[in-house]
């Protein structure tokens, strides 16, 4: 199963920017569960896109007006939610921020 880990922190996230990943990346690379990912520029540099009734609406800033910010994301491919939770819990950001796990939408058999 594929999952997107959204690494969310609050304003204090910047203080952890140089913490490094404490061996998480190395372990996950070795386990072969990482399928992609990146760190992100801060939310005030985000642009949100919506199309309503054919009209393109661009908004300066992030989608959600919350204190939490998506600082990065990792795409993982692992057995099930328990393994995804285990992987997310090991990520250093889980210690000060939040990691949201989203299953990647997979088309039902027969559609592709």
């Amino acid at each position, binding site marked *: *199963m594929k*999952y997107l880990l959204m690494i969310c922190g609050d304003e204090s996230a910047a203080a952890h920017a140089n913490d490094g990943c404490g061996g998480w990346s190395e372990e996950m690379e070795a386990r072969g569960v990482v399928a992609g990912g990146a760190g992100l520029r801060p939310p005030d540099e985000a642009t949100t896109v919506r199309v309503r009734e054919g009209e393109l609406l661009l908004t300066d800033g992030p989608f959600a007006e919350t204190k939490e910010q998506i600082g990065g994301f990792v795409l993982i491919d692992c*057995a*099930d*939610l*328990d393994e*995804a*939770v285990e992987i997310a819990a090991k990520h250093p950001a889980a210690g000060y921020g939040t990691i949201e*796990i989203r*299953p990647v939408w997979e088309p039902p*058999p*027969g559609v592709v």
Partner: protein
Amino acid sequence: MTFEEIYRQEWGQVVATLIRLTGDWDLAEECAQEAFAAALQRWPIDGVPDRPGAWLTTTARNRAIDWLRREAVGAQKLRELAATPAESDPAYDVPDDRLRLMFTCCHPALAMEARVALTLRTLAGLSTAEIARAFLVPETTMSKRLTRAKQKIQHAGIPYRVPPAHLLPERTPAVLAVLYLLFNEGYSDVVRSNLSSEAIRLARLLVQLMPEEPEAAGLLALMLLHDARRDARLAPDGALVTLDDQDRTRWDRAQITEGTEVLDSALQRGVPGPYQVQAAVAACHATARTAADTDWSQIASLYAQLPQTPVVALNRAVAIGMADGPAVGLRLVDELAAGPLTGYHLLPATRADFLRRLERWSEAAAAYQQALALATTDAERRYLEKRLREVSVRS
């Protein structure tokens, strides 16, 4: 055994096995339902088979094969399923299936209310309408909740298995919490008492499936001991009857014996936990010949072993007050008054009771009035009103 009893006993196993075989929760339930419907038609004519569960599982599995064939999807699944021999179904009686189902329904990635609803639906076989009625929500709401939970299990990849040993200590409390919540939903309300019976039935199953887990036995003992007093808890007019005043001949002796036996064997493992300790408190009450014989010092020391939540602290204050006198109890309760229990009706109710025992009638009346304003059920209100009348005439 009546059909109803067979249904209650076998439903969870049939559904659990079918989920394992097909990986499809809705299909599993539908096929189980069809199998029970077929049994209702066949058994009166052919007689009840020797192993009704195996018969039901085989029938449900054949329905699943038919369905997969009709839909012409899941060819792989169909082959696997068809390859399992049908006669004296070996898929039946896999003890892990129901345990797997219980842990999956109670996975911490599901909302608490979804865990409870799913457990009742898939393990206990309650209909969506029955569960909705029990939780006082419209049937459509409950149906959406169940659908969403099943979809999350499938789409989010919640595994259908008993967690590996290293996850058991963190997952088992979630299962126990769901069963205890179920029990309490039924215990506080006469109309919903079938929820308590289901919780006890599922706890028995859990103890049978996890004999190594003393807290499961502790929870079963706790529920049995509380439930044994069910009939004596309410007066004919619906008012709550407190332990002091309950007619002890109406307690279910057989159930008390069973509860204390289950508890004793759990305690022998030497790994006490909150459920075993609470069961020990319940056992102190249940085995006291009269209210006056209650071993309150023992109860107070048991409460001291529990995590000191505000409610536990209040219960402990009550026990100490009963052992050492109402003046001591009142002082302890008053110390709790400024804390997080403000607005909790049992705080003024307890104060009122100690004041009554101290014959400080007008203060007691004021405290009963405070408790009345905060009480949450009719049974409690009636009890408090009765006490208020008693102390008011004396003040």
